[in-house]
């Protein structure tokens, strides 16, 4: 079940991605409206990160195309921001928290020029938004997982983009960080920004996202959460995986009787 939108901010058209000769994504065709928080959801190995990397131009698709703001990525780079998976970088790298956030400004500053006081102010402001302003000078090797994720988020904010792509920002972070991040994302969305998040947890997906792209190598469903995130489509995406079926059951149960957490 695929719900398209008029005037999409992101359009993925009949995308196919292969590693060598092995197709890892095919028949992916969906659109996203602006100002939404969209979740790319699916089981492990469904190609969620691959889809995101393809949209970001890090992987070349075998067929199909992607349009952002109805243009190609190269024309709108300054409006697009990316948060890679936390594990994708070496956190022993000799830079400070502020250095990492300033990297978000490099695209705006351009070649041969250094970041100035204005970039610094923006970076500080972004660190403040993620609650990390006390850690400015801290070396990144001394951060916890949740703090690392906040720093990455601050770096993305420093890009001052309109469209944000985040790869598993909730993976391995503490509950407080998860709440900070989701509150921030909602604030950004209400300011008209569009956020696309790769997410693996079915439980929270319904609460977090107002648009869902359900993926299992091919596109299972895409559209507003309450329309497309149904028992049927989740079964379709996760079907046949016994350990996950119980999780699906869990989600359905939660929908009927929301559990209270103490």
């Amino acid at each position, binding site marked *: 079940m695929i719900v398209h939108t008029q005037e999409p901010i992101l359009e993925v058209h009949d995308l196919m991605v292969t590693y060598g000769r092995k197709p890892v994504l095919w028949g992916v065709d969906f659109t996203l409206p602006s100002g939404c928080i969209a979740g790319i959801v699916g089981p492990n190995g469904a190609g969620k990160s691959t889809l995101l990397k393809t949209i970001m131009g890090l992987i070349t698709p075998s067929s199909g195309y992607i349009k952002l703001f109805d243009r190609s990525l190269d024309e709108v780079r300054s409006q697009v921001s990316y948060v890679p998976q936390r594990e994708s970088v070496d956190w022993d790298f*000799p830079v400070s928290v502020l250095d990492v956030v300033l990297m978000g400004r490099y695209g705006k500053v351009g070649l041969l020029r250094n970041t100035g006081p204005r970039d610094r102010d923006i970076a500080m402001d972004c660190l403040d938004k993620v609650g990390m302003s006390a850690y400015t000078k801290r070396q990144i090797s001394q951060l916890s997982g949740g703090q690392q994720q906040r720093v990455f988020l601050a770096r993305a904010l420093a890009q001052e983009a309109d469209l944000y792509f985040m790869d598993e920002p909730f993976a391995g972070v503490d509950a407080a960080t998860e709440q900070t991040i989701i509150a921030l994302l909602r604030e950004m969305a209400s300011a008209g920004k569009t956020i696309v998040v790769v997410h693996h947890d079915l439980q929270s997906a319904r609460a977090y996202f107002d648009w869902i792209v359900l993926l299992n190598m091919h596109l299972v469903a895409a559209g507003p959460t309450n329309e497309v995130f149904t028992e049927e489509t989740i079964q379709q995406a996760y079907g046949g995986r016994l350990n996950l079926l119980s999780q699906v059951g869990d989600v359905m149960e939660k929908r009927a009787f929301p559990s209270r957490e103490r």
Partner: protein
Amino acid sequence: MIAFWIILTGSLVAITCGLLGCFLILRKMSMVGDAISHAVLPGIVIAFLLSGSRDTLPMILGAGATGLLTTFLTEYFHRRAGLQTDAAIGVVFTFLFAVGIILISAFAGQVDIDQDCVLYGEIAYVPIDLWVTANGTIMGPRPVYILSVVLILVVAFICVGYKELKLTSFDPAFASVLGISTALWHYLLTAAVSITTVSSFESVGAILVIAFLIGPPATAYLLTHNLKRMLAITAALGVFIAFAGYWMAYWLNASIAGCMAVVTGLCFLGVFSMQRIRSSRIQPPIADPAAG
């Protein structure tokens, strides 16, 4: 005066190699330095055969070309054959180095270089390799001028591309999304390493070049978590190693390049042991506050 020129040459090579080496080890491509310093051999020989002279410029061009070829082939085998990068490096550089050796032995009569010179160099001959101008003025050792120019170029390269080098080393995916080409900076860095290598090893030899590329940056990496400070410590350490290595060789009456390489290793060992001792003193109370 002889000591001054030798130490100056050693310092210049140590600083140039060390600055580039910082980025090599942060990119986890330390072995690339090793590979390039060997793989440039056929390039040098071919440049020599074509130009018929041992002038610096053709040598640098030949070395630069083979250095880039090494990087390209390594990347190609890594991508296309799915071979691990270090395995690809191992195949490519031994092959190219061997081709260089064959070229030297086949054209032995015409080539004024031999593999001993390339591997071990002879820094002690630097003071007698003088630059004499057309009207007979002696300007001092030729290698010092060449190495100074290379050092200035490398420093300029790092200053201009500092933030790009930093970002493409730390987070290549993010760099690409910003529109900064990771491949371009990768090749620029390897080209800089090739040029540095070839201009250095004429006087100090490939082994010392490798020691200078990795040793001081690795030591500095243990000492700081700040990239700029890491570069500064590396440079200072390079000068110290050139000094200490020379005087060690003087007292032992041994190979200067060998002593400098040994001092590089000793520096690393010293810093490493100091940190082990310090951390073993500090850690118990942190690990188990109840024990105290």
